[in-house]
């Protein structure tokens, strides 16, 4: 455990670093840089949870302009009428399955950011997801994700932490958002996967750890890469096995996949890991045909999971330090297709959940009578939302990660 004095010293060093005092002075002692780095991250810091809706969520049937003539005309089989929407304010309502989100809204814990996108929208899942993950619209610029780059920038600090900067929970491939040049983040399917099975033999465990750690002279890059990961995997395993054993919660989470993942995130947060980012995904939003029931089920899962997670965090006194960002790679066409589904589109709403969000609707619903290639136009660049999350929540400078020109969107109470 850190002593109070050391904590204060580290905090002062961090403050000096973020004020520019350290970086501007050529004479600043190196130990202060290191302290600033070490002091920036400790259990108790603010945490970001990212929920990715994979496949392209139909934003128009999520946050619904239910009185809009154009909406009803272009969506003959899919439009949801004013008798069924969960009314938010003005002419906007939530999909009837989003009762969980409606509760969050009542509790002032939900911000609905409308019309989020980026210029020249790409309608390929992989391209657009890569753009959201890397925050770069140029294809040549996709080696590391926006969060991964943030970790790389802080690798001196991270090298001193036994906890990974981020964890991805899920069986799918690790999202590119977490890909970093230097700092790996693990992906896990369930907490059990952090158990190294040895049939109870400590000797076997020791043999495996020693063999992984033994120095390798002249090892190639790929072997070095695997060895670094293997060593960190064994360490992470030891820590999680010992810390996440006896989690108790008063909240009944739904049985859905997303809810169970978020429950594990709550467990890990409560275990006091210094991990700053958790990443989960819910797939299936690519609703080209027979969208109605599938989309309704997905949104019910989303809202129910987010509501249970928020309640659990509240019960464990972590709610003030956890922000959840919910996004999809694109919205869908305004006009439904002939298979009672919708095709790939562009701008869509995103959601932020937490005690410090500016609750309610943020920004106008995009106009349906002013389309570009059949899609609604964005007015808020997703990178300005990232800028707010990085600077105003995680406390990390956004410009080195996102580039210049993205003013933090007004989505958090500051």
């Amino acid at each position, binding site marked *: 455990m850190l002593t109070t004095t050391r904590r204060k010293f580290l905090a002062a060093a961090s403050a000096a670093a973020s004020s520019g005092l350290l970086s501007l002075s050529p004479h600043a002692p190196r130990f202060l840089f290191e302290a600033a780095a070490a002091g920036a991250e400790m259990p108790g810091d603010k945490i970001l949870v990212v929920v990715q809706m994979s496949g392209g969520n139909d934003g128009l049937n999520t946050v619904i302009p239910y009185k809009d003539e154009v909406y009803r005309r272009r969506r003959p089989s899919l439009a949801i009428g004013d008798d069924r929407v969960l009314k938010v304010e003005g002419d906007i309502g939530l999909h009837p399955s989003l009762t969980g989100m409606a509760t969050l809204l009542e509790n002032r814990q939900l911000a609905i950011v409308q019309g989020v996108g980026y210029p020249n929208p790409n309608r390929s899942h992989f391209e657009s997801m890569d753009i959201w993950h890397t925050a770069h619209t140029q294809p040549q610029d996709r080696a590391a994700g926006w969060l991964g780059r943030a970790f790389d920038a802080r690798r001196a600090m991270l090298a001193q932490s036994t906890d990974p900067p981020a964890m991805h929970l899920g069986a*799918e491939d690790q999202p590119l958002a977490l890909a970093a040049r230097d700092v790996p983040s693990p992906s896990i399917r369930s907490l059990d996967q952090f158990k190294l099975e040895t049939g109870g033999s400590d000797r076997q465990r020791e043999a495996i750890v020693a063999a992984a750690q033994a120095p390798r002279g002249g090892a*190639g890059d*790929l072997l070095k890469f695997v060895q670094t990961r293997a060593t960190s995997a064994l360490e992470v395993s030891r820590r999680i096995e010992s810390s996440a054993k006896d989690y108790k919660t008063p909240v009944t989470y739904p049985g859905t996949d997303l809810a169970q993942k978020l429950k594990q995130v709550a467990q890990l947060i409560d275990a006091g890991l210094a991990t700053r980012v958790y990443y989960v995904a819910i797939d299936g939003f690519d609703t080209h045909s027979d969208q109605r029931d599938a989309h309704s089920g997905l949104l019910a899962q989303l809202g129910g999971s987010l509501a249970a997670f928020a309640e659990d965090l509240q019960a464990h006194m972590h709610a003030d330090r956890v922000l959840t960002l919910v996004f999809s790679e694109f919205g869908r066409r305004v006009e439904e297709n002939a*298979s009672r589904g919708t095709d790939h589109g562009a701008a869509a709403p995103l959601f932020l959940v937490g005690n410090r969000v500016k609750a309610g609707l943020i920004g106008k619903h995009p106009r349906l009578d002013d389309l570009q290639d059949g899609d609604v136009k964005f007015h808020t660049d997703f990178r300005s939302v990232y800028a707010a999350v990085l600077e105003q929540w995680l406390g990390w400078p956004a410009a080195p990660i996102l580039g210049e020109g993205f003013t933090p969107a007004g989505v958090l109470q500051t």
Partner: protein
Amino acid sequence: MSLTLADLRPADAWQPYEPSAQQPFTRRLAAHLYRRAGMAANSPELDAAVRLGPEAAVKQLLSPGEVAKQFDQEMHGFAQVTLAANNPELLSGWWLHRMRHTPAPLVEKMTFFWHGHFATSAAKVREPELMLQQNELFRRHSLSDFGGLVRGIARDPAMLLYLDSATNRKVHPNENFAREVMELFCLGLGHYTERDIQELARCFTGWEIQHGTFKFNQFQHDYGSKTVLAKSGKFDGDEGLAVILDQPAAAEFICGKLLRFFVADDEVFTPEWISPLATKFRESNLSVAPVLEMIFTSRLFYSEVAIGRKIRSPIELGVGVLRALDGTTNMVQLANRLRELGQMPLYPPNVKGWDGGRAWINSSTLLGRANLMRSLAESSETRFGGQSLDQLLDKQGIQSAEAAVDHLVELLVAVPLSAEVRAQLVATLDQRGASRPQRLRQTLHVLGSLPEFQLA
């Protein structure tokens, strides 16, 4: 510094490898060939390959002959029985069984390559019969003409259901399949426009899946003129595909992907590396076998740029250990374990297939790989040569701890171990207080959790 592609010149590296006093064709090189062109080889297979030499060994991989036909019939029969359970996970187990026992390992490896390339998941398709039908399409075309494979996949019920393209009407062309043909199947990003996708989608209008069968619905086909990649005509689907396959980018795209799959994960194969292969591919009317032959007989393939320069995929790992050690186990259980490592056959993560390479490696998968090796070593359902691992080694006359470790390493590990790591394995095998069979299982477990073991 280790050797990289930049140290080699394509003109030299694409020359055939000829064994010499400096670089003889050893069991280690033969093991490398079978790890890549198949799912690993056992000890007698390595000896046979060394006797044949690389050229003849590769010829044999490319033309497996009569024995493979009998095996095909037998496996087809087993698959029909498996279908009766209507559970696609059993079919995954069937495929692993097939990979483990096939006498045509390159056919099976390429079948798996195409499965990743034309990725279709049973999680969405849900009909094991359609997944099997697609699997047999991949196997039929595994080494032959790519054009036939693409035309087959354009009518394949599993694929079209997976891409939500079971209906495609002329008033609202479904762009999904057309997009993937361009982006993922044939050309790659940057070689087409959104407009080309929309036009190609019109070529496929009226192509439908009804009750699990492909049908052409003439009332929904758009018979008008289309312009795809600057070629115009009243194209139907096959004619649209012909325009695509005629693009130089098509051969380059496939050859680039084959290079990464078979040679090295981390290298960037520039056009100067790809173009000799792509030329061969085009000259043989997009037949795959000549391209594979060129890869597997090249100096490049037997150089340090290739050996140990790939991360083993989970399936290569699981099936490979079994093949190398004459092992058998419960394949449905193995399929589910592979799911945890990110690669269950018939369940690719998305339409892009498995990324492979460094993406295989993270904390949970590394622990999972170690745990998989323990379960393979310790499971009561695992047999090595019909018996236990120590009996198998006894039969091969391997006695001392050092000899046993070296034998296992030669069969299972692509890169040399340091003296210290080798000594740790010997110490595990020599430890007191356990029986030899138990110590051998523990040694296999430690070996299987080594960083070196994760390389192919």
